[in-house]
C-alpha cells in the first residue's frame, strides 16, 4: 500500500490481513499525541499534515552522520499508552493507519470505524528489521520533547509485515484472543491452583 491512503484503501482491509507500506510514516508517542491534540484543539496546525499518512508508535534510535539523521533501530512501542488520545487524534488529523504493538482498545476501534482507519502491528522489539524498511529521515519536529518523543517523518519502502489487528469494520483481533485467555484462566487455571475468580 502507498501513502497517502484513501478511505477506500483502508475500508478494504480486514483483521488478519498482512500489508506492506510505502510512502511516509510519522512517529508519535505519548508526549507527541498530547502536544498535537492541544495544538489542534486551540485551532493551530501541526508541522506536518497527517491526512492519509501512517502514524507509528515508535521512538527510534537515531544517529547523526554528516549532519543528516539516520535511523539505526526503530521498532514499535506499546500502543495502549496512546489509547486515551487516539480517538481524537484520528478524528482531528485524518491519519489512516496506526502502526504499533500490543493492541488498542474499544475507543480506538470506534475511531477506526467512524473515520476510516486501521490499526496494524509490527513485531515488537524487531527494531533492526523495521529499520530495513526505512529509506531516509525526511524531517523531524519537536526535538525539544527528546529524541524518543519527537515527530520523525520517515520515508518507507515495503515497510512490514504489518498485521491488521483493528479494521474499519469494528473488529479487534486481540479481543477474540483475550476472551479465550480469560476463559482458560477462570475455568482451567484457577481450579488447578485452588482459588476462585
Amino acid at each position: 500500500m502507498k501513502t497517502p491512503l484513501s478511505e477506500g484503501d483502508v475500508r478494504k482491509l480486514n483483521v488478519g490481513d498482512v500489508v506492506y507500506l510505502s510512502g511516509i510514516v510519522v512517529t508519535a508517542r505519548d508526549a507527541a499525541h498530547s502536544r498535537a491534540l492541544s495544538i489542534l484543539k486551540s485551532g493551530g496546525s501541526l508541522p506536518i499534515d497527517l491526512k492519509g499518512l501512517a502514524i507509528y508508535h515508535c521512538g527510534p534510535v537515531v544517529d547523526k552522520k554528516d549532519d543528516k539523521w539516520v535511523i539505526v533501530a526503530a521498532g514499535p512501542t506499546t500502543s495502549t499508552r496512546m489509547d486515551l488520545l487516539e480517538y481524537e487524534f484520528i478524528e482531528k488529523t485524518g491519519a489512516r493507519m496506526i502502526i504499533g504493538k500490543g493492541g488498542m482498545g474499544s475507543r480506538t476501534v470506534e475511531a477506526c470505524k467512524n473515520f476510516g482507519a486501521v490499526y496494524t502491528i509490527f513485531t515488537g522489539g524487531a527494531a533492526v528489521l523495521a529499520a530495513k524498511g526505512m529509506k531516509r529521515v525526511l524531517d523531524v519536529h519537536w526535538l525539544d520533547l527528546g529524541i524518543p518523543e519527537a515527530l520523525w517523518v520517515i520515508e518507507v519502502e515495503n515497510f512490514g509485515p504489518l498485521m491488521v489487528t483493528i479494521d474499519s469494520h469494528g473488529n479487534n483481533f486481540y479481543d477474540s484472543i483475550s476472551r479465550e485467555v480469560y476463559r482458560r484462566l477462570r475455568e482451567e487455571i484457577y481450579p488447578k491452583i485452588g482459588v476462585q475468580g
Partner: protein
Amino acid sequence: MLDVSLDKRIEDAIVMLLKAASIYLPQDVKNALIKARDLEDNPLAKAQLDAIIKNCELAEAEGKPICQDTGLISFYVSVGDEFPVKGALADILRRATIRATREIPLRPNSVDVLSGKNPGDNTGRYVPHIDWELIPNNSELKVTAFPKGGGSEGPCLAKVILPTEGLKYAKKMVLDAVVEAGPKPCPPTVIGVGLGGTMDFAVKLAKKALLRPIGVRSDVEDIAKLEVELLELVNSLGIGPHGVGGRTTALDVHVDCAHRHPASYAVAVVFNCWAVRRSTMIMDSKGNVDFITHKFMNELWR
C-alpha cells in the same frame, strides 16, 4: 598512576559491556527463542518468532541495538574488598553510560520525573541505577549490565497479601498479571517472582531473578518446583508470542523467596520482554577482563 589507568580500563570495559548487552542476546535467550519457534504450530505465532530471530541475526550482523528501546541502564556490581577501585566506580559507570549512548548509539531514555526533560545521555538522578554488593576477601570486580526496556516495566506489580491467603493467591497474582499484561510486555517474556521479605525486597528479588539464565532452576528444591509449575500454567494460557496466540507466553519463570514477617506476605511480579539483554564481565585487580556472557568480546578487548 596504576589506579588512573585502571579507572580508564574499567570505563572502556563497561562501554563494551553495554555494547554486548544491547546488540548480542545471551546464548541462553537465543536458544530459548529458537526452541520456542521450533515448538510452535500456530502460524501467526511462528511468524512473530521468525521475525524476532531474524531481527537478532540482523542486529548482530550490522552491529545495531536489537531493540530501539535500549532501556533504562542498570548495573549490578559485586566488588571485592581488595579490588583497588571502589569509591570512583559510580562516576566511572556514569561516564561509560554517556560514552556508550554516543558510541553504540543508544536511545537517550532518562527523563526527569517532574519537568519531563531528557538530558540526552541516559543519566540523571539515580540513573544509571547501580545495585552494590561488597564481597569480602576478594580482589575482583564483577559487573552485570542490564538495560531493560520500558514496555515490560508497565505490567510489573507488587502487593502485600494476607498470610492466610498464602501461596495459592501468590500464584493467582502471577497468572492474573500475565493475563492482564497480554501482548504488552512483548512476550514470550521471562517472569521474575519475589515472595516474602518486605515489599521493596520482594521486588528486588523478583528483578534479580531475571538475571538468572533461562532454563537454570533455583538451587532450592521447593522453589525450583514452583518455577516449573508456574511456567507450565503460564504457557497453558495461550497468549503466545506478541499475544497472537500460541504455545510460548513465557520463556521461563524465575522465583526467589525471603523469610517474611508473620503478619505480611509480599508478592512481586516483574516481566522482561523477549529481548533479555544482560551481559557480565569480571575484571581482576590488574585490569584483565573476562566477558563471561559474551566470550567473543574477549577477542576484541585490548
